[in-house]
C-alpha cells in the first residue's frame, strides 16, 4: 500500500451556529411551508436525456428503509425513463463486495453499516472524483449544496469522493422518566457521571452502564471520541485516527483511558457487555437492566416496538469532560457516492443531485421517519409534531454553543487500526489490562498501521 496522507479539511468547514432547529428566524432557511414528504415536481438536474438502469446499493439497518423507498419513488416520478435496481438489506455490503472487486459495481452507493469502509473504497480507487461536480450542485433555494451541508465532505488529498448524507450523533442515553422518579442526576461531566453511576450501583436495581462488546466501535465512537475531544480537541482526534507516533501513548490519551479504567474498577460496566450485540445491549437497557448506554441517534427507531410504557428517551453527549467544561460531540457521517466504474454515471449523478437538491425537504422526512438527522442546514423541526421530542431537545442542546462543542474527525478510523484497538479495549473494560497497558498496546497497533502504509 502506498503511503498517503489525506488532508483534513473537514474541521474548518463547520458552522456550528447554523445548525438545525432553535436557531432563530428559521423562516429564511426553511422551505416555505412545504408539507414534508411531498413529491418534488421538478428537478433541475438535466432531466430528459437521463435514462437506462440505475443501480443503487444501500445498507438497511437501524434507520429502516422507508426513507429510501420514498426518495426512490420520487426520483422515478421525476425521471420516468430511468429504471431503478435496488441492492439493499443488512448484509448488502458483504454481498456486493465481489461485485466491486470484479469491476462491476452499482452506480450509486450509500456507505454505511457492517462491511462498509469509505476510506478503503477511496483508497482502492472505487469512487468517482466529485470535487468539481459537487461545486455545481444547488439546493432548491439556490444555495450551493456544499454551503448547505452541516458538515463538509471528507477530503482525500484535497479531493472529494463522497457527499455526507446522514448526520449521526453519538451520545449516551438514559430513561429520563426513571431518572426523575429515582432522583438520579443527569450528569454534566465525568465526575458527576461517576457520582450518578455510584448511586445507581448502590440502588442495586440495575447496572450503571452497558454497551455492545461484539461491536466495540460503539464505545470508541460513543465514549472515547468525545473524551479525546475533551482533552485534546480536533488535533488529538486527527493524531489518533491517523495513528501518529506517540498519540495513543500520550498523557492525554492515558488520562481518558484511566477514566475507563475507573469505571471498570468501580464495577460500573455491566460485564455481560462483551457477549452482547448492539440490539441485545439496547434491549437490556430498555428493560432497565442497565442505566446508561452509548448509541447513536438511530436508537429509538431501531428499538421501536420494544419500548416499555412510560419509558422516556433521554440523550446527552457522553459526559467524559471535566467539571466546568462543555460536552463534546463528534458527528459521524454516512455518505453517498458514485462508483468510478458506474455503468450509468449520468443517472447516478442525477440521483445524487436529486437527493441533495431536495435536501431540506428530505431532511425533514428523514427526521420524521427515523428520529435522526440528515447533514443539511436550516431544517426547522421545532414546529414539526411528527418529530419526536428527544430529537428536538437533543438538537437544541447540540446547537447551544454554551453547552456543547462540536469536534470533527478528519476521516473515519481505518479498520486496520480500529480492530486491534477494539481488542485491547475489551480487555481494558474487562479489567484484564490497565490503562497504561492499553495505551502501549494501542501505540503498537498504530506503529504497525503506519508501517503498513496507514492512511
Amino acid at each position: 500500500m502506498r503511503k498517503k496522507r489525506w488532508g483534513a479539511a473537514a474541521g474548518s468547514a463547520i458552522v456550528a451556529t447554523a445548525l438545525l432547529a432553535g436557531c432563530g428566524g428559521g423562516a429564511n432557511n426553511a422551505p416555505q411551508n412545504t408539507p414534508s414528504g411531498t413529491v418534488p415536481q421538478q428537478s433541475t438536474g438535466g432531466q430528459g436525456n437521463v435514462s437506462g438502469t440505475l443501480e443503487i446499493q444501500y445498507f438497511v439497518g437501524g434507520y429502516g428503509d422507508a426513507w429510501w423507498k420514498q426518495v426512490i419513488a420520487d426520483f422515478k416520478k421525476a425521471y420516468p425513463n430511468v429504471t431503478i435496481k435496488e441492492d439493499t438489506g443488512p448484509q448488502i455490503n458483504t454481498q456486493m463486495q465481489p461485485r466491486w472487486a470484479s469491476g462491476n459495481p452499482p452506480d450509486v452507493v450509500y456507505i454505511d453499516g457492517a462491511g462498509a469502509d469509505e476510506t478503503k473504497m477511496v483508497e482502492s480507487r472505487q469512487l468517482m472524483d466529485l470535487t468539481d461536480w459537487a461545486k455545481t450542485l444547488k439546493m432548491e433555494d439556490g444555495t450551493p449544496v456544499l454551503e448547505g451541508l452541516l458538515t463538509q465532505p471528507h477530503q482525500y488529498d484535497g479531493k472529494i469522493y463522497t457527499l455526507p448524507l446522514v448526520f449521526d450523533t453519538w451520545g449516551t442515553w438514559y430513561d429520563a422518566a426513571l431518572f426523575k422518579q429515582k432522583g438520579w442526576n443527569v450528569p454534566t461531566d465525568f465526575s458527576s457521571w461517576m457520582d450518578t453511576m455510584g448511586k445507581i450501583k448502590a440502588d442495586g436495581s440495575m447496572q450503571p452502564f452497558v454497551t455492545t462488546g461484539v461491536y466495540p466501535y460503539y464505545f470508541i465512537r460513543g465514549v472515547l471520541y468525545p473524551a479525546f475531544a475533551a482533552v485534546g480537541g480536533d488535533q488529538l482526534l486527527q493524531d489518533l485516527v491517523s495513528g501518529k507516533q506517540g498519540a495513543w501513548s500520550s498523557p492525554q490519551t492515558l488520562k481518558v483511558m484511566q477514566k475507563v479504567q475507573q469505571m471498570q474498577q468501580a464495577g460500573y460496566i455491566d460485564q455481560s457487555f462483551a457477549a452482547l450485540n448492539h440490539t441485545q445491549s439496547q434491549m437490556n437497557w430498555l428493560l432497565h437492566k442497565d442505566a446508561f448506554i452509548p448509541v447513536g441517534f438511530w436508537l429509538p427507531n431501531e428499538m421501536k416496538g420494544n419500548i416499555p410504557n412510560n419509558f422516556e428517551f433521554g440523550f446527552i453527549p457522553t459526559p467524559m469532560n471535566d467539571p466546568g467544561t462543555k460536552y463534546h460531540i463528534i458527528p459521524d457521517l454516512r455518505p453517498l457516492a458514485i462508483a468510478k466504474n458506474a455503468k450509468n454515471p449520468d443517472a447516478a449523478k442525477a440521483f445524487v443531485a436529486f437527493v441533495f437538491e431536495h435536501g431540506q425537504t428530505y431532511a425533514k422526512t428523514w427526521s420524521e421517519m427515523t428520529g435522526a438527522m440528515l447533514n443539511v442546514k436550516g431544517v426547522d423541526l421545532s414546529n414539526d409534531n411528527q418529530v419526536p421530542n428527544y430529537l428536538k431537545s437533543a438538537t437544541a442542546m447540540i446547537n447551544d454553543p454554551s453547552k456543547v462543542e462540536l469536534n470533527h474527525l478528519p476521516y473515519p478510523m481505518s479498520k486496520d487500526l480500529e480492530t486491534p484497538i477494539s481488542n485491547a479495549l475489551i480487555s481494558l473494560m474487562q479489567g484484564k489490562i490497565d490503562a497504561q497497558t492499553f495505551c502501549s498496546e494501542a501505540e503498537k497497533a498504530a506503529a504497525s498501521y503506519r508501517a503498513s502504509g496507514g492512511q
Partner: protein
Amino acid sequence: MASRAEAAGAAYPNKVRSHSIGERLVQGGLRIPLVLWAIAVLFPILWTILAGFKSNGDIYADPWGLPTTWNIQNFADAWTTGSIGHAFVNSAIVTVLGTLLTLLLAIPTSYALERVPFRGNRVLYNIYLAAMMIPQALGWIPLFMLLNTLHLLDSIWGLLLVYTATQIPFSIFILTGFMGTIPRELEEAAAVDGLSPLRTLWQVIAPLAMSGIITVAIMDAINYWNEYFMALIFLQSPEHYTLGVGINYLAETAQYTNAWGTLFAGLTIAIVPVIVLYAIFQRRITEGLTEGAVKG
C-alpha cells in the same frame, strides 16, 4: 424380572447370555447419559419451535417458558421477509440435483481410480485426496469472478456446480474405499459375459457399492443443505436465496429490528420439515449409513 429378561432376549435372539444383577445396574446406569443427551438434543429444538410462536415481550420476559399467546404472524413474516418459501425450494433443488450430479461424476471416477490401472492413477487419486484440505475461503473471490464470466452468478445452477466440485474429492475418498472391497472376480465374470466396462460399472459394481453410495449421498446432501457462505456471496436476489442465506438474513434483520420471534419462526420452518422427512426415511438412511460404514 424374568419377563423383562426374556423380552430383551427375544429382541436379540442371537445374544443369549446370563443377566446378573450387576449387569442390570450397569445397564440402568448407562441409560442416564442416553436420556440426558436425548434431552440435550430435543430441548433446544422444542424451544426454537415454541419461540417461533412468541412475541418479543414473551421472549424477553420468560425466555424458557410457554408462549402466552400463540403468534402465527411470526411464521408469515419469516416466510416473506426472509423469502423462506423460495429459499426452501432453492435449497431443495440444489441439494437433490447437486447430490445426484456429484454421484454421477464421482462414481465412475472412483471406479476408474480404484480398479483400472493407468498411468497417473495414484497421482490423480492423491490430488483429489489433497483437495479435501483446500480452505474454501481462498477460492471465493476467484470463483465469484469465474461465475461472473460464465454468467452463472446469482443463479442456483452456478452454486450447484460449485458445490458439486467442492464435494467431489470427499465423495471419491469414500467411494474408492467401498469399491476396493468388492471382489474382482465379479468384474471378471461380467467381462466374460461380454458386458462393456460401463455396463459392468452400473449393473454390477454400483449395486454392490450401494451402501457406500448412500453414505456419500447423505453426507453430500447434508453439506449442500447446510452451506451458507458461498451462497451468501454468489446469490444476490432474494428469490435465489438458499435456506442458510434466508435464515441469516432474518438473523441480521433481527439485529436491527429485534424480530426474534420471526427469526425463530424461520428456524422452525428450516428445521421441522427436514426432521419429519428424516423420521419417515430414517430406517433407509440409517441402514445406508450403518451398512455403509463397514468398508469405509
